[in-house]
């Protein structure tokens, strides 16, 4: 295990995408999350998974318990608003009767799951059933009203017409079937949920594996193999041809970029944490002067 305070503990980093065209069609980036959840389901590593499914309003996801490939596929793609996946974990073990649950979440959600496992209060016969935690990189997330503001005020359309949203190259792209609007990320500042201001984890450091688009070419993903569970899942998926791998770009637009973004997030957020702690606010993170390495996520 490589101990790395920027990217978190990991075994290996690789660049890959799903081989299944159907998965790639709707996936956000390389379709890694969808492909691996489906693969884990087929290999009986999980017997169902919590994903961000469709909610009552377009682009406002709701956590669902997916137990079929079809349901997992239907929930692929990023929704840039909060989806409380953890809220379904207990129910997944109850009326759904799952015993090996897969989950996907942003870094904060992954932290939540690990905390649940460490302090399983009110979670009898739940945490021992969490079998796989897929993490997705995350710089910030937006309340649904913010998202609507981007769509309606900046892109001048309505949520139901949007076919894809993506953050890349410093912009938030909002795509409809016949148009594309690019909003500079700077203009989205102030719209994110306030908790993100104190979040130091960019790459879901506590997940079994995490992935995102940063560091890879368009349509591909950078995967960080972390735990043995995550690593063996990915190794087997590659061996079975579920994922195809290309050489990882170590340079400026590859891993260097990933490290730069992760470092910047940590430094910026540590400042916010310090400020909050200085004025006596309760923030569950450590002040920089008490840390040996300020990049450490704690």
């Amino acid at each position, binding site marked *: 295990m490589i101990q790395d305070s920027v990217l978190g503990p990991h075994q290996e980093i690789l660049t890959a995408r799903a081989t299944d065209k159907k998965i790639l069609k709707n996936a956000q980036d390389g379709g890694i999350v969808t492909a691996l959840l489906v693969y884990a389901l087929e290999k009986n590593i999980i017997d169902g998974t919590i994903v961000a499914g469709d909610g009552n309003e377009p682009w406002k996801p709701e956590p669902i318990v997916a*137990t079929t490939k079809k349901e997992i596929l239907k929930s692929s793609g990023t929704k840039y608003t909060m989806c409380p996946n953890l809220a379904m974990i207990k129910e997944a073990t*109850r*009326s759904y009767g*799952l015993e090996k649950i897969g989950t996907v979440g942003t870094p904060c959600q992954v932290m939540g799951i690990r905390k649940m496992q460490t302090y399983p209060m009110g979670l*009898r*016969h739940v945490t021992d059933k969490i079998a796989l935690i897929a993490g997705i990189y995350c710089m910030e997330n937006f309340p649904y009203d913010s998202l609507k503001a981007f769509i309606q005020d900046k892109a001048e359309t309505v949520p139901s017409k949007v076919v894809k949203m993506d953050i890349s190259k410093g912009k938030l792209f909002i795509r409809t079937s016949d148009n594309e609007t690019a909003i500079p990320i700077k203009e989205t500042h102030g719209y994110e949920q306030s908790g993100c201001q104190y979040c130091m984890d960019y790459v879901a450091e506590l997940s079994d594996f995490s992935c995102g688009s940063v560091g890879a070419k368009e349509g591909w993903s950078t995967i960080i193999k972390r735990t043995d569970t995550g690593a063996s899942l990915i190794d087997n998926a590659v061996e079975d041809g579920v994922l195809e791998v290309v050489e990882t770009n170590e340079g400026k637009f590859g891993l260097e970029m990933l490290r730069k973004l992760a470092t910047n997030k940590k430094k910026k957020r540590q400042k916010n944490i310090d400020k909050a702690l200085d004025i006596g606010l309760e923030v569950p993170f450590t002040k920089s002067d008490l840390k040996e390495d300020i990049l450490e996520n704690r």
Partner: protein
Amino acid sequence: MSKTITISPTSRQEGHATLSLEVDDEGIVTTGRYYSITPVRGIEKMVIGKRPESAPVIVQRICGVCPVTHTLASVEAIDDSLKIEIPKTAQILREMCLNAHMVNSHAIHHFLVAPDFVPSEDYKQVVKNISEIRKQAQFVEDVIGGEGIHPSDIRIGGMAHNITKNTKNKIKTRINGVIKLIEQHVEQMTKYVEAKEFPEDLGKHAQPVLATSNTYGSRQNISLSSINEIMPNSWYADKYTSQEDEEFAEETKKTAKKIGKTACSQIPLYDNTPVETGPRARANKYRKFKDVGVKAQHLARAQEMINSAERILELVDKIDPSAQTMAKFNLEGTDRLGVGVIEGPRGTNLHTAKISSDGFISEYNCIVPTTWNIPTMGMATEGNHYDYAPDVIRAYDPCLSCATHMIVVDDESKEVLKEDMVQL
């Protein structure tokens, strides 16, 4: 010479109780008194003035061994008070949850009595089997009740969730898988119990049985007007053996009076006499099982594990995963006394509740299985050597915290004012 033997607290049971036994020269019990010394929590009082939906959540805390039973009795009482007809699937789910709990709770009791019956060379295996049986039963309780301990999904008006088809199949597979082990375990326990050298008539008594149904509980089969709850002092005060020795006679009377003041449970009588409730009572009434006494109780309890597991399999096939599990109702009080009767592992659990017209709980009362059994248990120790008395008690699988009611103590004199005992 006659003497009084006190065993306090009695062991390998839930909660705290005392056995006070008057014995003759040979050590044979002439008067057996069993009484609860578990501190009271006042649960029934706590729910008064609260919204109905708080009651199941609060009263399930009466007991950590039997929360499913209390939750069910509570929602049944409130459903009855509010005249809510729950959907069929919800009724099936409730009964399945109770039967899973029955298997689980009886298995726990086998942990408690294993030292009495199981030979040391088999001990490890038996404990392993019990653990496996409990695991499968708890799975059913978890997925249906939402939580094995303190179930969250048993609600007024039905059940919060149905189960998915996947869960339905899992229950079937798991219970089908474990039923062989249950049968084997029951056979083994039966063998140990039968081999145990107990006096022939140990635990036999002439009291009637109380049971309302084979596997769930029925308010139709109990008559509230036949129930009479009396204060412990009037029950225990004359529970002593007449003695020739004057000094000792004085002492026994004093002891009996003191017990009447210390005991923390009321004495419920059915048709003016104490009853036995529990697995043997149900087996007697609904399964043609006629034996009485300690061994009979253990055998009936073990057999009931199979009965309940089979019932789960019967019911699971009837579940429609797409059906509604909550009734549509307006939470309007009726001022009507609702009755909830559940056949719990230890016997008939009776909750009564009234919801006032402004929608708050105005009356709440429980008579739980061990409360029924307490007076009978003392009587059942009589006629045999006191060495066997704890075996008689354990055959009832008593649960004292459930049975406890509130006592009122005079602040100044520290005297327990039994006449003012608050019905909780």
